[in-house]
């Protein structure tokens, strides 16, 4: 009984301790990246394209540091304000699934690259910052991989991932806006839902 209590206690403390550390945004990005890549480097299944395992890894290690509501709002653009709270909720849920999958697919293609971290200038009181990293790949020019973070309460949350200047979030703006114009917010929710379902059945 006592061990059960201490376990519960530890579980309760876990998220708090992670928050109270007050890590700087660049330290957070570096730590999460290093953690994830260390696992990928040792996991032959992920390296050979096991999407399920990569999805689990992203869900446990990366997901808690992302603000999907903000990401979805960015991708949907102007139409976001017209959505009901329930529609917003469903949009975020579906968009989250899609982004997690995109991120996982990128991880399974990770091979011989190394990450270098660019210094991040952070003014006192700043609540919005871009952390710049570079994916160095032998024989090719390095790829810029940047994270936009916002300070929320106790910690920093990622709200955009930018690869070679391409935002994985705002790149959807055009196609999302087109869908909303022709079929409304519910049409967009349906489009996202169908895509996710199709991806799920595609590679179990």
């Amino acid at each position, binding site marked *: 009984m006592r061990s059960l209590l201490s376990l519960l206690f530890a579980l309760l403390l876990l998220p708090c301790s992670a928050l109270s550390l007050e890590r700087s945004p660049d330290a957070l990005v570096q730590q999460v990246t290093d953690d994830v890549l260390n696992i990928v480097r040792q996991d032959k299944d992920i390296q050979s394209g096991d999407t399920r395992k990569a999805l689990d890894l992203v869900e446990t290690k990366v997901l808690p540091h992302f603000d999907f509501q903000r990401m979805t709002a*960015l991708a949907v*653009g102007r139409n976001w304000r017209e959505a009901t709270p329930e529609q917003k909720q469903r949009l975020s849920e579906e968009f989250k699934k*899609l982004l997690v*999958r*995109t991120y996982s*697919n*990128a991880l*399974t*293609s990770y*091979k*011989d690259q190394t990450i270098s971290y660019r210094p991040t200038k952070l003014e006192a009181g700043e609540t919005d910052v871009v952390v710049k990293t570079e994916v160095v*790949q*032998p*024989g*090719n*020019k*390095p790829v*810029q991989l940047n994270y936009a973070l916002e300070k929320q309460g106790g910690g920093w949350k990622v709200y955009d991932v930018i690869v*070679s*200047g*391409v*935002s*994985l979030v*705002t*790149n*959807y*703006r*055009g*196609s999302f806006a*087109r*869908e909303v*114009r*022709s079929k409304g917010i519910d049409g967009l929710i349906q*489009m996202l839902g169908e*895509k996710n379902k199709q*991806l799920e059945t595609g590679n179990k």
Partner: protein
Amino acid sequence: MKPLFSRPLAAYACAATIVAASGCATTVDHDPADPFEGFNRAMFAVNEGLDTVAIKPIAKGYDAVSPLPVKVAVGNFFGNIWDSWTAINNLLQGKGGDALSDVGRVLVNSTIGIGGVFDVASEMGLTKHSEEFGQTLGKWGVPNGPYFYWPIIGPRTTRDTAGWLVDTTYDPVWRIDDVPLRNSLVALRYIDLRASVLPADKVIEEAAFDKYSYIRDAYLQNRRSEIFDGNPPPLFP
């Protein structure tokens, strides 16, 4: 020097396209950046077909048989040739320091790096830059113009198509007199480049609702970022 078949060919292709494009720009609800979407989608389909039956399988084969050091050497070799053009473009954009560093890279890599096969300069701290004439035009204030999706060379705005023509005219590989050697090198460079982006295939395939517009939107964002050397002013406040 022999005449470059690529130049007249590309010029004809351009002329033919503009005629063809004006006839088939009938897509509803199109992006203002992409007035010739009908034509572009047709060309995109052609390229996807070519890629599926020929280019991708060859690139996969090349990727499978070449050990990493070979691929790195090939990438470095062509990268070194391109660095001289990068230097000129940096100079044209008024970035003297970068241009000087690029000249240093070519000197170091061509000698100590044995003809560019080893990228010693990067290890010495001379960062590799990515420049071509399309970016230079962009820096000079030339706007994108309509977006095009060309066969073989893929997405280019009108400005970047012009830039590409100038790039190809300069390109030392295209200027080699020995035609079989020139063609082999051009093909090797193309396949090596295709092989290097093989891992991105699945990411794009699964992320995109409509692959054509996903690639177009990404291309336009990427070019904007390149012109501002990775620090574009925010587009969405």
